């Protein structure tokens, strides 16, 4: 199968700091890939470069056959690349329904506002937000706003969905609910790049794991083999975690 997203030699510098260096990464259609790494490893920068928030200084990015490294963000979004933000980004004065309607109207290419509203209602139901539809987005709880981010991303009818720490700041019950939601999204066939700190989430959903460290891709492969990889253990997981994982038979 050909790759949906293909990064070749992608490099991004901020002044002297090389936030991403020579990243080669390829995501196949329908894959769920976990992206882990310590704070400041460049995970969010990688998402920003793919979505056009930052422009890569070198390298090429191809999505669905089209070069997107120098494309405007809104065009990349309309091609079917969606993301959630680590820090949620709602339109605060709009209702939850209006937020998702806007996403369906532009990124989802709905033919009319009425059609976009129908699509939005569907996505809200999918994300369990129907009860909150009439509320201003600013009045949602953090868990609710994370769900709204997801609903907005789904309204773009994404081929590639990048979830940037959708579970950060949630309590364990909320994480379980979010996890269940991610699994259901994955079942619909979108390719998912899951950026996570919580190993529980990554190990339960992703089959493949990619590790970033100091802007370099230090491991890429099946979850179990990456988690026992010597470099990854040194850089990120720590020896004790690796031993516990080995003991649990993962």
């Amino acid at each position, binding site marked *: 199968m050909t790759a949906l997203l293909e990064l070749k030699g992608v490099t991004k510098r901020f002044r002297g700091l090389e936030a991403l260096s020579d990243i080669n990464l390829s995501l196949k259609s329908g894959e769920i890939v976990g992206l882990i790494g310590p704070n400041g490893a460049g995970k969010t920068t990688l998402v920003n470069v793919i979505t056009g928030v930052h422009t890569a200084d070198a390298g090429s990015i191809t999505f669905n056959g089209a070069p997107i490294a120098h494309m405007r963000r809104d065009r990349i*979004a309309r091609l079917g690349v*969606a993301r959630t933000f680590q820090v949620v*980004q*709602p*339109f605060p004065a709009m209702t939850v329904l209006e937020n998702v309607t*806007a996403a369906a*109207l*532009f990124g989802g*290419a709905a033919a009319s*506002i009425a059609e976009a509203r129908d699509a939005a209602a569907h996505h809200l139901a999918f994300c369990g937000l129907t009860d909150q539809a009439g509320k201003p987005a600013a009045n949602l709880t953090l868990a609710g706003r994370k769900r709204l981010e997801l609903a907005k991303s789904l309204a773009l009818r994404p081929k590639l969905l990048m979830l940037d720490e959708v579970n950060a700041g949630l309590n364990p019950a909320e994480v379980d609910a979010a996890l269940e939601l991610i699994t259901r999204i994955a079942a619909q066939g979108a390719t998912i790049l899951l950026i996570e700190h919580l190993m529980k989430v990554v190990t339960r959903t992703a089959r493949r794991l990619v590790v970033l460290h100091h802007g370099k891709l230090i491991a890429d492969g099946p979850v179990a083999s990456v988690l026992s990889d010597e470099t990854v253990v040194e850089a990120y997981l720590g020896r004790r975690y690796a031993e516990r994982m080995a003991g649990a038979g993962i």
Partner: protein
Amino acid sequence: MLRLALPLALPFAIVAVAFVLLSQTDAYIIRLATTFGMYAALALAWNIIGGIAGYPSFATAAFFGLGAYVTAVAQNLGAPLLVGVGLAGAGAALFAGLLGSAILHLRGKYFAIASLVIAEVLRELTNSWTSVTGGGMGINLPLAKTTLLTQPQLYLAAMLFLAAAATSASMLIDRSRLGVALRCIAQNEDAAQIIGVDTRMAKTWAFVISSLFIGLVGGVYASWVTYIDPTDVYDGAMSVKPILMALLGGVGSVFGPVLGAFAYLLLEELLWRNLLEFHAGILGLLVVLLVLFLPGGLSQIRGVGLVSLPKIWRRAP
């Protein structure tokens, strides 16, 4: 189709009734009503870029003055009034389209400052291009030839018509894709891009439509007063007044600017006339009060009008 018919027809119907009622009254009332039409059109036009899109433009005087001068020069070259005013609208819209690509990527106060300079530049250009504009001496316009209406009635009709057209445009934008895009931009421009809004295109259209109306109003104004000079039509107050009106009535809402224009005109007539010495001070006081009641500045006041001032007061730190 009914959804489109209402916004298209209603403002014009109201204005037609108003015209019939007002056109037979005395000269003072007609003059006041003409000014109201002009203010309402300007406030509505500003609201499209400043309110709905959240880009606080201080360039109203620039497009107003440009429109006035285009009409004046065109009429002096022999063009009929309607052609002159049409060229004023087209000229202002075209200028906004070109200008927009240069300054609409600036956000918040940076955009405000950049837009503030435009009127100054145009005034200097007008001052120095004496052969065409008459320079600092100003320029005269021919009296409009009227048959059915008297002179005052003609300008009353024209200004009220422009106010109605600006209302229609605002209502149509409000319920269109463009309106949704602009509200997204006003609330979170980065998030708007991520959901696929072509923000550059949406902002440029808002700026162009806004400037079209401002240019048309400037053109009618020039013909109405029959003599313009650079300090009059590029006056900075012309940029501030529509913002005050929109603030008074409710920034970002469709009818707020109309209400605000009325409130402002009332203030102007009652206070200015009785406080000739201090009217600039009152204007300043009004700005201070609005800013005090609206902390967080221009970008956070969408959908807030006179009615909800007490609520804002409670929220203020």
